[in-house]
Structure formats: structure tokens, C-alpha cells
């Protein structure tokens, strides 16, 4: 493949990239860890999002869910990013050329921006929300964007693996 940037070509053919790609065990182990970390992080996060939207866990105060549950999502995200980088490294050229992988990165950025805005701004009044059954519109919107963008990340990720473009 000639029409990829030099760094992508280098990653694909580096010791790390080739080692993971051609190992019988390494690729499946890294990939399985990636999926399990995804189920942990996104799985837990989605429940917080549902709570933000007023759709689930209504009896638990939203500030408490955020404080106690999100650290577990964070651990999952860290593992997911690390294993994701390794997976990309091993299939850099395939990923770079895949339309679905580009979509995946786009939605990851959207999810990160949404989370950043929530954590740095929207969240400030979270303890006031405990008094009401449903959080304010800006919080509900953050939950909705989070669920939709992570769903899109998973869909695009699967489509990348199957080379559907």
C-alpha cells in the first residue's frame, strides 16, 4: 500500500505492529481485552447517561452515581485506549484506509468533547439535580449525545473489523 503516510506505513511494519498482527495469541488477547474494557467502560457510562436523561436508576441520586460509578468507567477507558492503540498499531494501514475507522475516530472525538464539556462546565450544579426526578435539559442533552456517540463508535468499530465500506 503506497498511498498512506510514512508514519502509518512505519507503524504497520514496526516490530510492535508486525509482532501483534502475526502472533497467534497476542492479537486475540489484546482484542478481547479491548472488548471487555469497552463493555466495562461504556456499559457503566451508559447507565450514568440513562440517569442523566431521567430514564434509569431514578431512585439513586445522580451526583452519587457520578462520583462512585464513573471511576470504574475511567479504569475501563484507560485499558480500552491502551489496547486500542496497540490494535491500531498492528493494522495501521487497514485502519487508515477504512472509511468506518475514520468515522469511529470522529465519533470518539465527539464523545470526548461532550464528556469534556460536561466535566468542566455542566457538572458544576450536579448536586442541585438530586432534588429533582429528572436533571435539567443541558444534562439530558449530554447524556443523549454520549449514548449516541458511543453507539456510533461501537457500530463503526465492528464495521472496521469486517471491512465493510
Amino acid at each position, binding site marked *: 500500500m503506497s498511498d498512506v503516510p510514512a508514519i502509518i506505513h512505519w507503524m504497520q511494519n514496526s516490530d510492535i505492529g508486525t509482532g501483534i498482527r502475526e502472533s497467534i495469541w497476542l492479537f486475540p488477547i489484546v*482484542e478481547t481485552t479491548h472488548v471487555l474494557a469497552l463493555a466495562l467502560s461504556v456499559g*457503566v457510562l451508559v447507565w450514568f447517561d440513562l440517569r442523566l436523561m431521567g430514564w434509569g436508576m431514578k431512585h439513586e441520586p445522580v451526583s452519587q452515581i457520578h462520583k462512585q*460509578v464513573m471511576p470504574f468507567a475511567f479504569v475501563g477507558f484507560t485499558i480500552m485506549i491502551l489496547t486500542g492503540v496497540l490494535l491500531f498499531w498492528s493494522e495501521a494501514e487497514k485502519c487508515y484506509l477504512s472509511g468506518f475507522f475514520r468515522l469511529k475516530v470522529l465519533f470518539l472525538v465527539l464523545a470526548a468533547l461532550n464528556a469534556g464539556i460536561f466535566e468542566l462546565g455542566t457538572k458544576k450544579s450536579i448536586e442541585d439535580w438530586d432534588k429533582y426526578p429528572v436533571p435539567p435539559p443541558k444534562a439530558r442533552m449530554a447524556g443523549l449525545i454520549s449514548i449516541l456517540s458511543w453507539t456510533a463508535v461501537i457500530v463503526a468499530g465492528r464495521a472496521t473489523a469486517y471491512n465493510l465500506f
Partner: protein
Amino acid sequence: MHFLLPLFQWSDQTWLGETIRNSRIYFPIIETFHLLALTLLFGAVIILNLRLCGIIMKNQPTWQVAQDLAPWAFWSLVVILISGILLFLSEALKCYASTPFQVKMLFLFTAIIYHFTIHRGVSRSDREPARAWGVIVGVVNVLLWLGVGLGGRAIGFL
């Protein structure tokens, strides 16, 4: 010949199985629904068992958390089972020969039975379980579902 072989052969030849097998996109699409529902269920399992182990949301009774998680978790399980059956029909004979598939089914049936009997009894009780008992019941539940997930991923690789 194993007594279940005819069942696998029949599954492999169903109209649904053949339709999915002959399409390039049906399998990935169904698998994506399988994965999305699985993510939601796994999240619920983690949160509920963290509560059962007395690690998070200690101000809420366990039964309340269990009750709030139950409807979404139940419908996730329904989506997982339906999409899982469709995926199975499309490659039943491959599954027949697959050790990870057998391991996965063993974990799956154990996890479901355990979840709706022992685990449900403890997590829905009016009285909070003793700490150690809650931890044991919770950890076993997480490990069972983890076994299902690992077995499932291994079907695709081995």
C-alpha cells in the same frame, strides 16, 4: 455421533441461517446489536455487584438498585439471546465443532440460572446480606458473565 448433532445440522440448514450466512452484511449487523446489548447488560451487572459487594452507593438499599437496573438489563438479555440465536443459526456446524462455544453455553446457562435464583434472592432481599456473603455472591456473578464473554470472543478466534 453426539446426540445433539442433528439439532446443530437442522439449525445450520434453516432458511434464517442460510439467509444470514449468504449475506455479507447481516452477520456483522446482528453481531453489532449483540454487542451493544451486551455492553448495557455488562454495565448493569458491574454496577449491581459493586453495590452488592458494598463498594458503591452504600446509601441506597441493594434491592432498590437491583430493581432500578432490572428492566433495562432484562430487555438487553432478550436482545442478546435473540441476536445470539440468529448468529448461531448462521454457523451452527462451526459452533458444533467449537470448544469455546461449548464453554460459552455452559457459562451462559449457569449464569442465567444463577442470576435469576441465588443472585436474585440475595440482591432483592429486604435485608442487606452480610458483607462476606454479598461479596461472594457478587463476585461469582461477575465471573460467570465474564466467562460468557470470553468464551464468545474465543469462538471468533479459535
